Each structure stands twice: as C-alpha cells, then as structure tokens.
C-alpha cells in the first residue's frame, strides 16, 4: 500500500481528430476517468492541465479546460515539460496529495496538434533545440534522435533492421488498441523502404503528431481505500534533467543519462530492481529511443537493447512486455497526453482489465517519458 493511489483513468481516441476541439478532447478522457473512479466533479480538489502549450491555439489552456470540465472554482494550472508534461503533472499531483493540501487531483493531459497549418508546424519544428547555438544550423526533433542512433550503430553495431523491429512490434499491438491512431501493422521491409527523415531514421521509425487526451485521478490513501476496490499505488517517482544543448552533454551519446538518473530515483523510492518490473511503457518517440530506453532502464546491458526485440522478450508473453498498447509509434503522440496515456495503459494492465492485450500476473508497472530532445525524463513505478 502506498501513500498516493490512482482511482481512475480515461483516454480519448488518438489521431487526426478533426471532429473535436482541445477542450472537447479533454472532456472525453475526463468523463471516462470519472466513470472509472465512480466519483463526481465535486469530489475533485484541483486539476492540472498538462500540455506543451506552444502547440495550443488557446493561450494558458488550463483556463478553458477547467471551465469546460466544470472544475471551477477549484485550483487549476498548466504543467509543461514538452512530451513529458503529464508525467510531470502526475509527480506534481503526488506532491499536492502527499502534502495533504488536496485529497483528489485530476491530471488532464491533452494536445491538439493537427489543426495547426503546416507553416505553423514547420515554424515550430526548427526550434526544438537550443535556439541560440543549434537551431541556427537546421535542427529537427528526428535529427537529434538520429544522432544518438548513429552513435549507437557505430559503437555497438546496431542495425537499421533491428531498429525496424520497434515499429513492427508496436504497430502490431496498435491493431488491438481501438484508441490508437494507426490500426494497420507494418513489415520490416516497409519500414526500411519508407522515406528517409534524418539518417538513419525513416518515416516509420518516427511517431506522428496527433490529437488526443488522457486523464488520471489520484487520491490520498484514505480516499483510495474508501473509493477503490482495485487500487493501483504510485510506488516510485523519478524526474531528472539534462542540458538541452546536445553540446552540453557528456559521454559517447549512446544513452540518455537523464533516463538513467530518473530511473535510479524511481527504483530507489519503489524498492524495486529492473528485473522486478512486470510490464513497461517506454517513450518510443523514435525506434532508436525504445532500444536506448531498454538499456537506460536496466532491462538490457548497454549495447544489447535490440536483442530483446529479436528474442521477443518485450512482446506480450515475453520477459517484460513493453508498449503493449502500441506505444507512441502506433497510438500517435499528442505531446501533452502521452505521459497520462502510458499511465492509463499500465493501470489497466495492473487491474487485469487490458482484454486482448492483458499481460500475465502484472504487479509492478513502469512508465518512462522523455521530454523534448532529452532535457527531461520521468520514470513512474506503479504497483497493483
């Protein structure tokens, strides 16, 4: 039993949601989470709206989202940590509840990306890195991760065929997740022949911009015990930072120190080791990222991450199933919603409610969420 638990989760359909606005997407996830927890809006003491706000047409979106969900006059504010926004929202909510300031807090991760014009998206695209020293040379998000991929290939002999196993696995599971953006599987050949984005990463190695929302309701121990017959506890939280500039980082660029630091904190707090993790959700923004994450989280030794894919150890039924809901690559990546989406998938696994995608005897679940080009990373460990 922990000090803070999760009493409800909800998830909108992800993808190109031309039918819905930001606030309407948030409502889909929020409504499902309240139904799941069997509570009312009046039970919620505060809400955290998590989004990478540079993508939003609405300035300071917590204002309209809280209004639309009916959450006034309870406190609300935005939490922003790029792609890790809602994982950081969960950590913030944990602190608010553990401090006894609030009893029940709603974390609403949401992003509306596909209504931006391609000009607006492209204008944002060039500024993903350090705008003084790196963006002036034409950087992109895939370019940064591609630099890690080339370093890993050169040092350990990792191949593009091995990287292709990540989208092949995740798209396979996406076909069984009705809320995923992509519902068709892909073959290795299709990945290898897809258009080059930033060598060696090709189109199918990359996650896609999407619209969507996911919601988590956290509560104090007393409330959890009163409200939930299948509680899931927040056992460990880790959060770390790295220099935003690539030049500010050290080492051979074959791993994310930021993930290692966050994982160390989370494992210590949860009193678990990597081998104790039954199921995981990791940040597969790009194929190479999932491979590095295996190594940085201690699931595989440095340089051997791709072997887990070859031996199907991270498939359903394997030693540690990873991204069994399809991951970012199949679900799409509505930036602010992704962290909460990962937590939603784990909570359903730990409760044994994952249907066709249910893993065996899942008791310890781990979510890892990277922000931006690796300047933030959050690791969250849940216990069923």
């Amino acid at each position: 039993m922990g000090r803070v638990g999760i009493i409800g989760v909800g998830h909108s359909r992800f993808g190109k949601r031309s039918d819905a606005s930001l606030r309407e997407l948030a409502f889909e996830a929020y409504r499902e989470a309240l139904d799941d927890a069997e509570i009312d809006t009046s039970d919620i003491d505060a809400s955290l709206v998590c989004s990478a706000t540079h993508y939003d047409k609405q300035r300071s979106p917590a204002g309209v989202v809280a209004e639309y969900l009916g959450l006034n006059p309870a406190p609300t504010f935005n939490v922003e940590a790029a792609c890790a926004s809602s994982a950081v929202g969960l950590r913030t909510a944990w602190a608010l509840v553990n401090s006894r300031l609030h009893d029940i807090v709603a974390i609403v991760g949401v992003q509306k990306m596909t209504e931006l014009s391609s000009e607006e998206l492209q204008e944002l695209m060039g500024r993903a890195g350090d705008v003084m020293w790196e963006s002036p040379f034409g950087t992109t998000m895939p370019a940064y991760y591609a630099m890690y991929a080339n370093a890993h290939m050169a040092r350990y002999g990792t191949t593009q065929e091995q990287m292709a196993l990540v989208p092949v696995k995740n798209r396979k599971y996406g076909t069984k997740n009705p809320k995923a953006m992509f519902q068709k599987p892909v073959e290795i050949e299709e990945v290898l022949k897809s258009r080059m984005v930033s060598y060696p990463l090709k189109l199918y190695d990359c996650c896609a911009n999407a619209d969507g929302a996911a919601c988590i309701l956290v509560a104090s121990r007393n409330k959890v015990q009163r409200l939930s017959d299948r509680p899931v506890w927040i056992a460990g939280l880790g959060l770390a930072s790295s220099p935003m500039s690539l030049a500010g980082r050290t080492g051979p660029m074959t791993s994310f120190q930021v993930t290692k630091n966050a994982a160390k904190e989370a494992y210590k707090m949860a009193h678990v080791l990597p081998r104790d993790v039954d199921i995981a959700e990791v940040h597969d923004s790009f194929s190479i990222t999932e491979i590095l994450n295996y190594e940085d989280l201690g699931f595989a030794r440095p340089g051997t991450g791709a072997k887990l894919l070859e031996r199907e150890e991270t498939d359903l039924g394997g030693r540690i199933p990873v991204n069994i809901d399809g991951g970012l690559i199949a679900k799409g990546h509505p930036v602010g919603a992704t962290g909460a989406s990962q937590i939603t998938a784990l909570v359903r696994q730990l409760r044994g409610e994952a249907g066709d995608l249910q893993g065996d005897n899942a008791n310890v679940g781990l979510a890892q969420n990277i922000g931006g080009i690796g300047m933030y990373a959050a690791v969250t460990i849940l216990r069923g």
Partner: protein
Amino acid sequence: MGFEKFGKHGYVSQAKVAPIVDYLKKGELAGTKCLECDSLYFPPKADCPKCRSTKFDWVPLNENCKLITFTEVFFAPPEFQKETPYLLGLAELEEGPRVFAPIDSRITRDYLKPGALLALHPSTNENGAFYQLEKREQNYLRKQ
C-alpha cells in the same frame, strides 16, 4: 542586436555574446574565458555557472576536433529546405568543449565515424557568419 547574424538562419537577435559574429567574420574562432575561475566556454557564455562571475574575456580557440556523432537531414525546417540533404555533427574540440555544427557538404557519410579527425572552421554566408566541421587536410590547404 547582431546575434541574428550567427548561423545559417538566426532565431535570436539579442545576446551579450553577439561579438562572436565579428570574430567569425574575421575568420577567427573565439570562446570566452571566465576571469575569476579560468573556465573556458565554447559556444561562448557571458556568465559563469561555476563561480557566478560575469567577467569574461574572448580567447582564441584551436580548431582541431574529433567527431562524436552526426546525422544527415532530409526533412528540414522551412529555412533549410533548399539545402537538403545536409549533414549536422557533434564534435569535441581538443581544448575540451563540445560543439554542434554543420558538416562540410564535401564530406561523405562513410568518413563520419566517431573519432574522425575534423577542424571547426569559421565561414560566412548571406545571413552572416557561422562555423562548420571540415576535414583537417582541407583546412590545412586553405591556410597555405
């Protein structure tokens, strides 16, 4: 003002370290050195996070460096689409600091292994001034 002249397309115009553009235009590679604790910064910093001093001097830097990693960009931001594909690299200067820079387009991917010997050379274009990673021989020939 003036910093928008740094790089191939500048996003930031105002910075205390804007004089780097003038050094690059003169063909000189310069970093900053903290006058309190001697820490060397490249790219330059006007402030020292180690000792919190704001007193610094510009110092010349050795151009020799080694490659750490690279990529070749095919899908680029709008201002760079005319140049695709282009190479970007991360290298470590002999004096210690790391640098993120474009790589000379005459270099091919097979040369770009970690540890490959390179030189960071000042360059100019229609936007202003920047630096790029070149093979050391080319750098040597240019100086003759």
